């Protein structure tokens, strides 16, 4: 170690030596670390968004706040890439009228974190962080800076940036918040598309590292786009349903045991007894229907205590739930839900094209295709298609996950749609509250909806007659005592109704063609993860 320390000392000396001519640093005022912003004043300075830096703004002097994405020194100049959410722009600090050699050095971090970090590097590292003034070492990656610069058109498009036509010629640069020099993960690695061959052997970031350092992972343009799109799904869901005359309701998430069976619910202590976290707002949705709200929806967390570690299961997720009273046929509800989904898909296509493009750069996938009105197949048709493809299954079997996927592919092949409804499931594979088909006692008025071959919604016409409900429950061997409250809610007149619930994370994942639901959950909860 003494060797390393000696080298460090030498370096420091050299740096000090270079600091000597600071006296003749004519640009001294033009860069530096600003004091901590404690809301001291309200300057009139207008900050321009990075995404608005286009050719139209050429030759204007603007102020921009952004993160230093990368910095690269090249002789007497230094290129910075300034990032703001999904957008980035190139900035140039060059020795000249506005910038001195020292200013370029300030901007151009000889960033040691670009070197691969090995165990041996650890100790000199800590020493570096402890050095007195960070400005000697320039601006670390991910630091937030304010830059004043002139927007200049560039002759050749800049490949690595979203603002390809312009660059910023920096006149002043101030650090607002300095990032620590060592990042737990490199943003460039986190957005690198996963190439099959790995021929270059370049680093990618594994999922756990991403989730452990979610704050940084969420900064990547891909994550930014994913969660902006997710917000769009929620917004479009609300918009469409409210336009259709639905009422948004809030249902309790802490519920008593009696109403929730108990197979996979979370138990929480509730004063002197226990309570449970809601598995689904279904009971409350149905109660609202019985209370004459006619058409209701709710967006809220749903909890499932299932110890399954798959790509599409979470223990807490956001449910988009719909329940609706209908007049004569449950297809009124199916059509309404399907149309809502189509409106969401159309809205995403129109309003979130940039986000979709951004995500597909890292995770390439075919754009989502759908039909309007939505294709509705019946279970026997699905069976016929699967049997033709060589799958052996009985008339009353439920679809297994591989069959579901295969069916998705077959439907895609024939109808070229990634979204379809499968209607008329066998009664035997559905829960007791599912309304049986009046014409065929073996089938039921129930349906699933699929996106890219994976189920996103499961719904049915519910039995709204207490007599029939009791019969069905007994047929399923359910303890009537436990569901007394549920059955009782239909005793005072209940309109015929149907509904279903959608998982927001799954819809986002499947719309974008991503492979893991954790990518579309901001802070995912699964059997192995409770933090951050």
């Amino acid at each position: 170690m003494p060797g390393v320390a000696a080298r460090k000392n030498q370096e420091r000396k050299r740096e000090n030596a270079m600091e000597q001519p600071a006296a003749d640093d004519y640009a001294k005022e033009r860069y530096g670390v600003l004091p901590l912003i404690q809301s001291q004043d309200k300057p009139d300075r207008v900050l321009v968004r990075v995404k608005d830096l286009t050719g139209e703004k050429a030759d204007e002097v603007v102020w921009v706040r952004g993160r230093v994405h990368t910095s690269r020194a090249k002789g007497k100049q230094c290129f910075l890439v300034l990032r703001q959410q999904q957008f980035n722009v190139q900035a140039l600090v060059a020795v000249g009228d506005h910038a001195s050699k020292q200013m370029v050095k300030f901007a151009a971090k000889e960033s040691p974190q670009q070197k691969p970090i090995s165990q041996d590097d650890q100790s000199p590292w800590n020493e570096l962080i402890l050095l007195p003034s960070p400005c000697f070492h320039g601006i670390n990656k991910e630091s937030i800076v304010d830059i004043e610069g002139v927007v200049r058109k560039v002759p050749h498009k800049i490949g690595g940036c979203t603002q390809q036509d312009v660059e910023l010629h920096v006149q002043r640069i101030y650090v607002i918040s300095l990032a620590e020099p060592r990042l737990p993960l490199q943003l460039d690695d986190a957005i690198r598309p996963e190439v099959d061959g790995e021929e270059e052997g370049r680093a990618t970031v594994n999922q756990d590292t991403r989730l452990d350092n979610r704050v940084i992972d969420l900064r990547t343009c891909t994550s930014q786009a994913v969660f902006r799109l997710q917000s769009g799904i929620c917004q479009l869901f609300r918009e469409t349903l409210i336009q259709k005359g639905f009422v948004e309701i809030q249902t309790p998430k802490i519920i008593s045991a009696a109403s929730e069976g108990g197979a996979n619910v979370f138990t929480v202590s509730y004063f002197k007894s226990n309570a449970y976290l809601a598995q689904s707002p279904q009971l409350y949705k149905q109660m609202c229907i019985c209370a004459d709200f006619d058409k209701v929806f709710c967006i809220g967390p749903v909890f499932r205590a299932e110890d399954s570690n798959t790509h599409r299961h979470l223990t807490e997720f956001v449910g988009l739930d719909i329940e609706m009273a209908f007049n004569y046929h449950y297809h009124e509800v199916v059509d309404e839900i399907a149309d809502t989904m189509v409106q969401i898909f159309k809205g995403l296509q129109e309003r979130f094209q940039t986000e979709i493009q951004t995500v597909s750069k890292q995770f390439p996938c075919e754009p989502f295709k759908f039909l309007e009105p939505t294709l509705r197949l019946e279970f026997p048709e699905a069976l016929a298609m699967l049997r033709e493809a060589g799958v052996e299954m009985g008339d009353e079997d439920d679809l297994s996950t591989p069959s579901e996927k295969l069916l998705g592919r077959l439907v895609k092949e024939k109808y070229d749609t990634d979204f379809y409804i499968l209607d008329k499931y066998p009664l035997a594979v559905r829960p007791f509250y599912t309304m049986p088909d009046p014409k065929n006692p073996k089938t039921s008025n129930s349906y699933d909806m699929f996106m890219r071959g994976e189920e996103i919604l499961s719904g049915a016409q519910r039995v709204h007659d207490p007599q029939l409900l009791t019969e069905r429950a007994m047929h399923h061997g359910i303890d009537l005592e436990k569901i007394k409250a549920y059955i009782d809610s239909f005793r005072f007149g209940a309109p015929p109704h149907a509904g279903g619930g959608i998982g927001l994370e799954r819809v986002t994942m499947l719309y974008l063609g991503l492979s893991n639901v954790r990518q579309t959950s901001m802070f995912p909860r699964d059997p192995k993860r409770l933090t951050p």
Partner: protein
Amino acid sequence: MGEEERGCGWAGHVPLLQSARRGVRGLPRVSQSGGRATGRRVRGLFAPQMPMYKVRPFQGGPGSAVPPEHLPTCMYRLGSVHREPKAGPSPPAEQDEVDPSLQALESRQEEILKRLYELKAAVDSLSKMIQTPDADFDATNIIQADEHVPLTASSADLDNLLGKDYSALKDIVINANPSHPPLSLLVLHSLLCESYKVLSAVHTHSSVKSVPENLLKCFGDQAKKQSRHEYQLGFTLIWKDVSKPQMKFRIQTMCPIEGEGNIARFLFSLLGQKHNAVTATLIDSWVDTAIFQLQDGSSKEKAAVLRSMNAALGKASWLVGNELTLADIVAWCAIQTTGSTNSVPSNVQNWMKSCENLAPFNSVLKLLK
């Protein structure tokens, strides 16, 4: 147990289904661990049988070595090298004593090879016939098989034509571009509706921004009162961004059919009209002429086709034979598509009028307005 679980999840629809499925998925895991457990038990069984220091007498019972049941079963057992020198020293009988299974295999191979040669010969003769059709091919049989079946067919015929479909709806999917609506297919759709119970559906694919209202309602108001499987035929029209119409029926066993003329041929065949080879060829040639020269051709080509149509229609009231055929349907639609309905020769004009008196044509005409 599955029943129990299903019952318990009664308050959440989605969870329930998932839990049911997961139960199935969980099964292999259970059996796996079961397998591992038995494996361990096997290992455990051997331990007490082979005590560490106690060794059985090396020369045990008379004539026998270690009794076989005490040998660990995980090893291969080999026959004694010294006993029964059966096949070893007597090679002369070799030819007669070939293993029967080997013999069977050999004869099977012979048979397969023979069949392959036969197949090859058949294919060769066929290809020869195709290259020189007049040489040894007698077409008289085919020409004489002349039966005129009117445009009627039953559900049984449909099963014949399309194959049984596990009692599910036989759904024909047609992708078409709304900027060039395939009129002939719409006429054929009306004709199909006359002979079968057809479930018609119109969809818009997400690759198309907007479709004119009249095209979305090109099948009229569809009252879907019945369940899907009660229909004999499904006709699903998808307005999509495709360069030419495309039909998909059985994706596993049939490749998609492309082009309006070809799809029209397929749909027309469902109507059960049978023609002899000459008539069929004539119809075919008119269909190609109508699609490639009348619809997509230059103005010169169009004029030529109209002249020859005029000549043909001078002799008969329909283009081929004495009844309405696919030739008339496709040709009429091609003229409608080009929009030159007024500038056609007189015979063609009359023929167009008689077409338009038929309901299926009439409904398409309404669509164009």
